[in-house]
């Protein structure tokens, strides 16, 4: 080794080879860990989804798990709940976050730093902590109902935790509180990269604030909006902490999420790893499909 290094000509060649192995050394820990704790499990889960059994003994079951899945009313309910969260919560949050960001992007507004921090602050809380916080505010004779009664919005207290409809509304309110500021930060930083000259030109042409928002801000932010919607969608499909800690999945599974149901199949009922794996693959496919659809949609829009 020493002799090779001393000779200038060979040295160049040797360092190149040396660097190749050094590169592997730097990335190897990560690759091994991802292999063992991500790639092996996702394959293993796939194989497991065709097996059934209890405890440690499993046998091949073909598509039996999928047949069971299609008849499983709790699973179908969980799927439906997840779609309700996705269809209502994600658009509400993204429109709200965009509106807040464009208001905060106005240089004439004072105390912008304060407002930005205040609206971002919910992101600092843990999912468990904020879930429990919301649970405490939305009790039948609790704070929110008392306030709503006091300002005469409702005549009777809303059964937030007891009614299937209102329990979903509660989860949507909670999710929106927790994540709007996070998305708003993405939009705000993207808006700061838009040249003010676009807006000046639009104003000269007589465009009002809404038109500027609709025809300048939104099109230019499309990539960020796409990114945040994909992230939120994936997040929605994987909801667990809120369902577990705000409503406990109830009443009568009206708010249970797919992940929460998997947890129940694994640890609350007689554990069936095979069936739980089948359910988890529903999330895998939905994540893949929805991400693909969203990419496709914005892509086509962009071309048009």
């Amino acid at each position, binding site marked *: 080794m020493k002799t090779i290094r001393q000779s200038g000509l060979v040295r160049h060649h040797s360092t190149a080879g040396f*660097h*190749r192995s050094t*590169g592997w050394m*730097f*990335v190897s820990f*990560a*690759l091994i*860990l*991802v292999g063992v*704790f*991500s790639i*092996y499990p996702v394959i293993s*889960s796939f194989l497991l989804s065709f097996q059934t059994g209890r405890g440690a003994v499993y046998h091949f079951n073909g598509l039996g798990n999928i047949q069971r899945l299609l008849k499983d009313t709790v699973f179908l309910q969980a799927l439906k709940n997840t779609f309700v969260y996705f269809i209502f919560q994600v658009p509400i949050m993204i429109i*709200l976050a965009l*509106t*807040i960001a464009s*208001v905060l992007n*106005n240089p*004439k*507004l004072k105390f912008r730093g*304060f407002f930005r*921090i205040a*609206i*971002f*602050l*919910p992101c600092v*809380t*843990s*999912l*468990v902590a904020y879930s*429990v*916080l*919301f649970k*405490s*505010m939305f009790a039948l*004779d609790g*704070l929110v109902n008392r*306030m709503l009664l006091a300002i005469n919005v409702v005549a009777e207290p809303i059964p937030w935790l007891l009614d299937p409809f209102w329990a979903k509304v509660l989860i949507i309110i909670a999710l929106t*509180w927790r994540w709007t500021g996070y998305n708003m930060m*993405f939009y705000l*930083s993207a808006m700061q990269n838009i040249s003010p000259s676009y807006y000046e030109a639009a104003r000269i042409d007589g465009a009002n*604030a809404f038109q500027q928002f609709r025809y300048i801000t939104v099109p230019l932010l499309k990539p*960020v909006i796409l*990114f945040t919607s994909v*992230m939120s969608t994936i997040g929605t499909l*994987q909801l*667990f*902490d809120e369902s*577990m*800690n705000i409503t406990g999945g109830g009443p009568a599974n009206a708010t249970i999420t797919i*992940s929460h149901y*998997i*947890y129940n199949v*694994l*640890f609350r009922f007689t554990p069936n790893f095979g069936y739980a*794996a089948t*359910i*988890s693959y529903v*999330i895998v496919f939905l*994540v893949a499909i929805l991400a693909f659809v969203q990419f496709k949609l914005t892509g086509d829009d962009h071309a048009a």
Partner: protein
Amino acid sequence: MPHEQLLLRRLRGRPSAGLVFSYVFIIIVAAFCLFPFLWMVIGATNVSKDVSMGKLSLGMALFDNFANLNKLVNLPLVFRNTAFVTLVGTFFTLLVASMAGYGFEMYRNRHRERLYAFLLLTMMIPFAAVMIPLFRIFAKVQLLNSFIAVILPSVASVIVIFYFRQSTKSFSRELVEAARIDGLSELQAFFYIYVPSMKSTYAAAAIIVFMSYWNSFLWPLIVLQTNDKKLLTLAISSLSSSYTPDFGVIMLFIILATSPTLVIFFAMQRQFVAGMLGAGK
């Protein structure tokens, strides 16, 4: 004449209707965002019955709540456990992820580029799809109910690797070349040249990783089984799901559990936001 009036009004600098509307809107939104924090503080000073009745003024029960919390939860143990998992986890995650990000960017080659693209794809794998085999792996090697099992699966965080690789693009290669000429090994160059010059990247990444360990819930809920291994999130969740949850006590507990992340947030706002958004750029 009306034209001149309009001009005069504009010259006086009266705030437009749009701006007034903006203020009203943003104040309402900010109030909604901040209110639960206020509620949390008020709740911690009230007895459970008042909290669930929605009492909105400070009470006298703060010290009673603290005494009761101490009876219900072994606070020093739970904080020690959470701090251990968080600090050890954050350390190893930063080490492994920054080495990988550095390796992928500084020593580019075709095979590694392909693996990197594949690695990014694994980010899409939902946790639910891996947690069952993960549970079985740790059961097989008899490491259930250990902190190793909590930490190990998230050490090679792809999003953090990505973050480090992106940041390494702005790191000047000449520094490493110079180190090589000075006779430093490749590893020494990494630890003595790269790490110190990337302090702000490490700070931003550390905050995010810290948060994710401190707040992790589902995986610890699955692998940790005994009371002596409880983490903060698990303790909060089990208190609130008891038959008669004491909400005053729980509010106080949430304040204690959230305060470290709040302190970090206010002390390092810029890195905090940079870290949160880092993956998106």
